[in-house]
């Protein structure tokens, strides 16, 4: 019951935040120098089509009505037509969305799990070589410059050694081959995903490791750990069942706080590896002044961040009952 209330409260907050973002973006599009219409309608489009699109998007109405049209269009998926592709934005974004979600979620889950595991080990061996090695390693990896690391990985693993493909998400020869089954196609995508995923993993897991380590050290000082030891429980049980689950809570919080940062990193990674996701589409459309596509990609990314924040909150409330009350 309490859980439902909590989710509802957070859900309402997120709806409000998204509404504010929507409105701000609308205002910015109208305040920016130049003609607002030229930002939604491709200047090279033939006049009849342009006229039809203008009335469809409500751009010939007063600003107030335009805003209502804008909201309606957002919720019904009418984002306009991309200047660059000449096709509806929704269609393009629909194709890109799954790719981004796959890369984004798998990178966060993988780096959090490994970070928690290694942070636990590091804290357990505090002051020993294992700890020093892991902490220093995490510190250094965590501060590497993401785009540079991506370039280095491409240079070493894709260009020099040739283990992984240079760019893209699929290879044409596998996907045009009629004999290739589902398994082969999946393997092909995974093969393309390996390097971008590894890049994001290397950048992110270090901070989770450091947070888990310090939180674990704090937890180990708690009385209930002493109790568990006094009961004669095995050290391994104390570590894995008494200390680690509690120590992992701040890591979950930090996942929520770093989501915005992670999605920026995701956009850079997608761009460098030409992974066809929303982030790359945003960067690409901004450089091409493809406003409808840029606007829709941005809103969708904001929505992804907000929804994953909700997921993290719910997860947190689920593992830590104190939050719900």
């Amino acid at each position, binding site marked *: 019951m309490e859980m439902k209330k909590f989710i509802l409260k957070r859900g309402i907050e997120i709806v409000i935040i998204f509404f504010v973002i929507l409105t701000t973006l609308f205002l910015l599009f109208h305040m920016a120098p130049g003609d607002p219409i030229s930002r939604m309608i491709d200047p090279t489009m033939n006049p009849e089509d342009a006229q039809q699109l203008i009335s469809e998007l409500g751009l010939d109405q007063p600003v107030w009505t335009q805003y209502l049209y804008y909201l309606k269009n957002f919720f019904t998926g009418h984002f306009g037509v991309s200047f660059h592709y000449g096709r509806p934005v929704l269609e393009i974004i629909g194709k890109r969305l799954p790719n981004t979600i796959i890369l984004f979620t798998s990178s966060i889950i993988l780096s959090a799990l490994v970070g928690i595991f290694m942070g636990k080990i590091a804290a357990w061996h505090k002051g020993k070589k294992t700890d020093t090695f892991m902490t220093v390693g995490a510190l250094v990896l965590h501060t590497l410059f993401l785009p*540079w690391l991506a370039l280095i990985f491409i240079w070493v693993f894709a260009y020099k050694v040739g283990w992984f493909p240079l760019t893209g998400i699929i290879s044409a020869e596998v996907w045009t081959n009629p004999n290739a089954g589902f398994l082969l196609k999946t393997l092909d995508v995974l093969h393309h995903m390996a390097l971008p995923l590894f890049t994001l993993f290397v950048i992110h897991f270090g901070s989770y490791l450091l947070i888990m380590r310090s939180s674990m050290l704090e937890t180990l000082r708690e009385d209930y750990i002493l109790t568990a030891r006094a009961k004669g429980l095995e050290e391994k049980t104390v570590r894995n069942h008494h200390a680690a689950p509690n120590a992992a809570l701040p890591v979950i919080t930090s996942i929520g*706080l770093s989501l915005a940062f992670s999605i920026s990193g995701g956009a850079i990674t997608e761009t460098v590896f030409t992974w066809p996701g929303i982030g790359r589409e945003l960067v690409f459309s901004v450089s091409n002044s493809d406003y409808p596509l840029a606007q829709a990609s941005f809103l969708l*990314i904001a929505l992804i961040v907000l929804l994953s924040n909700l997921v993290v909150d719910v997860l947190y409330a689920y593992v830590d009952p104190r939050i719900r009350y």
Partner: protein
Amino acid sequence: MSEAIAKISTRKKTPATSYRTERLKENWHVFRESLLGKLGLILLSIFALMALCSFIPPLIDPMYNPMSGVDPLVSHSVGPSFRHWLGTDFIGRDIFSQLLGGARIAFMVGISAAFMSIFIGTIIGMVAGYAGKTVDSLLMRFADMIMVMPTLLVVLILSSLFGQLNIWTIVLLIALFRWPGVSRVIRAQTLSLKQRPFIDAARVAGASHFRIIFKHITPNVLPLALLYMTFRVTSAIIIEAALAFLGFGDPGTVSWGMMLQWVWKTGNMFQAPYWLLPPGICISLITLSFYMLGRAMDEVLDPRLRSVKQMR
């Protein structure tokens, strides 16, 4: 250093200042004991030296100007030589002098953006914590809202609307979007300070809210704000570099991110490691050194983090 502090303490003999210098001495001692802090400071001094030296190469020969200087003998990227210590880029500009200039930009962007965001964050945090109630929850909801926005992508979409942003606009935007984290921490600190007797004493003595916030609370939250400043410096440097890397930097500046964009976009990244490696290493190292500095300051502020050796 300790002599200098001793001098100061003999000059001003009020009990408060001598207590402060005592604490400063002790803190400096803890800081010096921290390996991370030392390493961070050494690295940062090297970068500061690079930034200072960035004025020298263009004075030697105009072709060493990082932005406009072109070696007339070079038409494409060439490797390191005596004439060009780190080689040249695709139109014959010297990479070493670009690297030095990049250090200057990194410090400029990092410190000014961090200073501004700490300034905004500290004030908002103090006001929210001190005022409480509606003001507090309004300000904090606003902070939450900005916190979930990916700063890099926000700046990106703004640059699509308003055209090429210059470096100071980028700095300002970074500052405007990076204060919420700071304000949360400062707010929490203010909430606990508010319960202390000296605030009550000030209020009874008739101090205005303004005076209490800026005269009594500010000095107590400043160390924490300073600590967060080191972390904000790194994030500002990274955001500017990433923006420049994606091609949305200030075209009038040579930053490390810009250098990486050039090596990437001109297709030289597989042929020119002398061009690809240095800017990335510099960005990563400057981030690391500010981060290490922050961790060491954290040890100064939070005694629980100190190792046994430093406790003695």
